[in-house]
């Protein structure tokens, strides 16, 4: 008879164990949260102390990342900040005794419970791809991350010219030398009589800054002309190579003139 109900008894026993476990598990976090908080005052005071500590970390650090050691988005965010060369502070919430309490305070501060939570210059920048100002990776894609980091003091760009390529270009094309760029690579003397007055120069710099361009209209026209000429030459070369049944490896010779043609035309279009 017992055998007949064995399966039902097993299911019932399993349910009882599960219910028991469900009853126990919710108690665990309370113990774990209450234990690590070092303040001896009431819970409200402890929360206030954590909130105060949190605000101090945020306000004292040019950039701070609240993270978890196992979170892939946190890793991406830290890698992104490393890539741009930022100096930042990391608070690993799962490795900090006050982590759970800090996470609660962060949630009330940002309206989000997820990590990473990144603050730059005291402003909530978001997580990896969302929240706050849009998230660190989003800001980086839009070119807005570096300015924020520089402004907050988390990124120092003064040493950037130490990279060899930048140094080479800096020595080839020196600012304040009285020269201007012509046809992309050549340099011409600037006629002092043709230099606009200070107001006009300021206006042009403002236009260039807002459109992120670094060559003037005359140079863009020259590059448009060079690009058109190179395109015609590239087209003629492409046709003649095909007509001559040139070997595939020989046809790779199209790449340099094609690069110049595309480069000049795109440069004229973009103003770079």
């Amino acid at each position, binding site marked *: 008879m017992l055998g007949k109900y064995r399966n039902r008894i097993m299911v019932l026993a399993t349910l009882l164990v599960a219910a028991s476990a469900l009853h126990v598990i919710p108690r665990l976090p309370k113990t774990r949260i209450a234990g690590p908080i070092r303040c001896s005052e009431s819970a409200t005071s402890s929360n206030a102390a954590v909130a105060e500590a949190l605000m101090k970390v945020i306000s004292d650090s040019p950039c701070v990342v609240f993270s978890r050691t196992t979170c892939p988005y946190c890793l991406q965010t830290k890698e992104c900040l490393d890539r741009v060369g930022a100096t930042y502070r990391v608070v690993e919430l799962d490795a900090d005794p006050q982590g759970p309490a800090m996470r609660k305070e962060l949630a009330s501060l940002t309206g989000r419970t997820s990590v990473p939570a990144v603050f730059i210059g005291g402003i909530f920048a978001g997580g990896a791809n969302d929240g706050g100002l849009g998230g660190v990776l989003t800001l980086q894609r839009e070119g807005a991350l570096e*300015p924020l980091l520089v402004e907050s003091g988390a990124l120092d760009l003064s040493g950037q010219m130490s990279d060899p390529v930048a140094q080479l270009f800096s020595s080839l094309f020196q600012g304040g030398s009285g020269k201007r*760029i012509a046809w992309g690579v050549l340099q011409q003397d600037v006629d002092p009589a043709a*230099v606009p007055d200070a107001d006009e120069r300021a206006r042009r710099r403002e236009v260039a800054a807002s459109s992120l361009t670094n060559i003037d209209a005359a140079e863009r026209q020259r590059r448009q002309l060079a690009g058109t000429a190179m395109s015609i030459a590239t087209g003629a070369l492409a046709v003649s190579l095909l007509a001559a049944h040139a070997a595939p490896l020989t046809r790779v010779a199209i790449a340099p003139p094609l690069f110049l043609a595309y480069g000049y035309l795109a440069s004229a279009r973009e103003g770079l």
Partner: protein
Amino acid sequence: MDGSGLQRIADPVLATRLRTKVNTFNARSIGVVAIATLLYVAVPELL
């Protein structure tokens, strides 16, 4: 850019944004030319 010839960009933030844009532009140019060359070399062989 302002008519006075080559000048160093004083604003480091602007310089960084411009550098990023130029680097992206260069990378895109290399990619476009590489793909176009590859097509020019490979497609006639397939026809």
